[in-house]
C-alpha cells in the first residue's frame, strides 16, 4: 500500500470518521450552537466510547478476538458517522468554523456576526489576529517537535508493545508485552483499551502500529487537547462582551500553549504527559476528558442561567464517562467523582437540586465500570493493599 494511501486511510479512520460521528450528539444542540470544535470533540468521545463498549465484552467473553473487534468497529463507526450526517442535516445542519464563515460571507458580500464585530472593533480584531498567529506558531512548533523528536518512555514497553502484539497477532492482552510469553488476562489494565484503538486504526490504515502511535497519533491528540482547552476557555469567558472575548480567547490559548511547552516541572504533570507520552491513555484522560468535564459543568451553569439546561451537557458527560474507561482503569471513577462534586457545587451555588439527579444519571457508565474494576480488585482490597507479589502477577 502506498504511503500516501496509508496516510489518507489514517486520516479517514482517525480523523474524518470520528469527526462525523460527532454530528450525532451535537444534533441535540440548537443549530447556532453546533460549532465545529464541539462536533470534533464529541466525535472523538463517541469513537472512544463505541470502541470501549464493543471491546470490553469481546475481551472478556470472546477470548479477546481483536480481528472481530476491528471488523465490528469498522462497520459500526461509519454507520454512526452516516447517522450523524443524516440527523444533523434533518435538524438544520451545522455551523462552519468561524474563519470559514467569515471568508464565505466576504466572498458572497453577505453579513456575518464575526465580520460585523471585526468591522466595529478594528483594534480588538487586530489584536485577536496577532494572538491567534502567536498561538498557531506555538501549536505548529509542538506538532513539529512531536514528529521530529522521539520521547523515550519506559511505559511504552507495555502500551506500545500491546498495540503491536494485537496488530500482528489479532489477539488482545494474551501475551506478556515485556517478554512475549503467554499470560493470563490482566482484566483491570486490559479494560483501558486505548492501545487497542490505536492498533485498530493501524490495522485499518495498514501501517506499523508503532509508527501510528509515535508519529501519527500526536497529529490527532495534540489538536484535540487544544480544542478541549479552547472549549473550556470559551465557556469561562462566556459572560465577556463579544469584542473582549474576541481577543481574550486567543490570549488564553497562548498561555495554555506556553504552559504545555514549559510544563515539564516534573514527570507527573498533565503537560509532561501531553508532550512526552501523547499516545497513552493517561494523557487523554488528563488533557481531554478532565477539561471536557469542566466544560460540561460550565455549560450546565450557563444553561441554568438561561433557564433550561437541555440534553447536551449530560450527553457530553455520558460520553466522557464511557470514554474514560478507554484511558486508564481509575479514570471513570475519577471523572464521575469530579462531575458529581461539580454538580454538588452547582446545586449549592444555584440552589437547584435537580442537577444532582441528572449528574448521577449521566455517571452510570462510570459506576458500571467502577463495579467491574472493584470486582477485579476485590481480592487485593481484602488483602489490605498492593504488594510486590501483586505487581508481579500483573507484569508477569
Amino acid at each position: 500500500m502506498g504511503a500516501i494511501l496509508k496516510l489518507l486511510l489514517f486520516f479517514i479512520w482517525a480523523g474524518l470518521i470520528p469527526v462525523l460521528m460527532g454530528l450525532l450528539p451535537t444534533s441535540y444542540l440548537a443549530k447556532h450552537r453546533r460549532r465545529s470544535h464541539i462536533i470534533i470533540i464529541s466525535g472523538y468521545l463517541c469513537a472512544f466510547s463505541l470502541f470501549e463498549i464493543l471491546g470490553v465484552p469481546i475481551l472478556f467473553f470472546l477470548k479477546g478476538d481483536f480481528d472481530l473487534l476491528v471488523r465490528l468497529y469498522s462497520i459500526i463507526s461509519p454507520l454512526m458517522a452516516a447517522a450523524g450526517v443524516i440527523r444533523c442535516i434533518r435538524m438544520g445542519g451545522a455551523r462552519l468554523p468561524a474563519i470559514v464563515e467569515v471568508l464565505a460571507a466576504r466572498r458572497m458580500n453577505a453579513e456575518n456576526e464575526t465580520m460585523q464585530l471585526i468591522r466595529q472593533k478594528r483594534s480588538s480584531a487586530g489584536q485577536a489576529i496577532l494572538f491567534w498567529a502567536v498561538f498557531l506558531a506555538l501549536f505548529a512548533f509542538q506538532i513539529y517537535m512531536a514528529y521530529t523528536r522521539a520521547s523515550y518512555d519506559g511505559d511504552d514497553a507495555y502500551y506500545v508493545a500491546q498495540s503491536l502484539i494485537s496488530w500482528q497477532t489479532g489477539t488482545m492482552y494474551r501475551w506478556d508485552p515485556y517478554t512475549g510469553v503467554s499470560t493470563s488476562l490482566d482484566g483491570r489494565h486490559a479494560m483501558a483499551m486505548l492501545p487497542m484503538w490505536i492498533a485498530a486504526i493501524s490495522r485499518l490504515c495498514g501501517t506499523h502500529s508503532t509508527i501510528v502511535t509515535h508519529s501519527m497519533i500526536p497529529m490527532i491528540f495534540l489538536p484535540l487537547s487544544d480544542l478541549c482547552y479552547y472549549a473550556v476557555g470559551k465557556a469561562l469567558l462566556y459572560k465577556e462582551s463579544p469584542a473582549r472575548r474576541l481577543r481574550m480567547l486567543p490570549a488564553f490559548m497562548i498561555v495554555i500553549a506556553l504552559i504545555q511547552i514549559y510544563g515539564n516541572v516534573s514527570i507527573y504533570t498533565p503537560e509532561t504527559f501531553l508532550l512526552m507520552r501523547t499516545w497513552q491513555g493517561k494523557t487523554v484522560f488528563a488533557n481531554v476528558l478532565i477539561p471536557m468535564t469542566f466544560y460540561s459543568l460550565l455549560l450546565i451553569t450557563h444553561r441554568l442561567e438561561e433557564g433550561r439546561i437541555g440534553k447536551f451537557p449530560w450527553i457530553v458527560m455520558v460520553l466522557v464517562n464511557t470514554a474514560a474507561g478507554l484511558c486508564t482503569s481509575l479514570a471513570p471513577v475519577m471523572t464521575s467523582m469530579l462531575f458529581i462534586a461539580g454538580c454538588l457545587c452547582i446545586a449549592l451555588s444555584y440552589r437547584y437540586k435537580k442537577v444532582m439527579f441528572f449528574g448521577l444519571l449521566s455517571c452510570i457508565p462510570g459506576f458500571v465500570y467502577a463495579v467491574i474494576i472493584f470486582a477485579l480488585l476485590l481480592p487485593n482490597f481484602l488483602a489490605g493493599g498492593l504488594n510486590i507479589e501483586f505487581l508481579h502477577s500483573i507484569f508477569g
Partner: protein
Amino acid sequence: MTEIWITILQYAGTGFLLILYFVSLVLMFLREDDRGNRAIFLYLPLIFLALFIFPPFRSLYGRFDSTATYYRFLWLLPMSATIAYTAVKQFSTWLKPGILIAGLLVVMCGKYTYENENILPAENRLHLPQMAIDVTDFIMNESGGDYTIVSMPPGLVQFVRQYESKLWLPYGREMLLPDFRNYHHAVYEAYIEEELDPDALIGATRQYNCNYVVVEAVRVEEEDMERLGMELLANVDGYNIYYDPQSPDWSSMGG
C-alpha cells in the same frame, strides 16, 4: 501526611507553576464575580485539594491502586486553565503587554519540555533507536521471520518488542523497574555485572532456551564465546549477535 506533602512537592517539581496556580486561585477568590466560574474553578478544586490532603482518603486510594499513582488526583485541579483564565482576566484592559508578562512568568516558573533528557531527535518514523531496529531486523532475517527467543542487553529490551512482537525475551523491561530490584533473573544479572562473565551469561541464556544472544561488542572476547559453542553472526551497530546451535526451534509457536 508526610507522604502527601512529598507527593505534592514531587508533583510541583523544579518549577513554580503550582505556586502560580495557587496565586491564580487567590485572585479568583478575590475578583471573580461569575457565580458559575467560582463554583467550578474555585470551590470544586478546593474540595478536591482538601480531599487530596486528607490522609484517610490516600489510604483508601492505596487499597485500590498503588499510592505511587496518587498524584493523579492533582490532575483534577484545572491548573493550566485557571492560570490562563486569571491571566487574561487580570490583564484584559492591556492585554498585549499583559500576555507578554504572563508568558514570561510561565516561562520562568516552568521547565522547557524539549530539554528533557528523554527527548532526542527521532532517528526514524517509529521513534525508536535505530540500533534496536537494525539488531531486530538482522535477527528476524536470520530466523526467517519466525518466533525466536533472543537475549538482549538491558539497554535494548525496552525497545525491541515495540518493533517486532515475534521476538521473545528471557527478561523484559520489568527488571528495570524499581519495584523489581529484589527479583532475581540470571540473564539480567549476567548483563549488569561490571565485567561480563561469558560463562554466566551463556549458562543463563541456555537455561531460558535463547536462540540468539546479543552483547555489546566491547564487553566480550570472541574466543570465550567460541569456547562456549556460540556462533558469531555479525556485528550490528556495535552489538555482537551470536547464534546458539544448542537452542530449540520455536518457529511453530505463536505470540
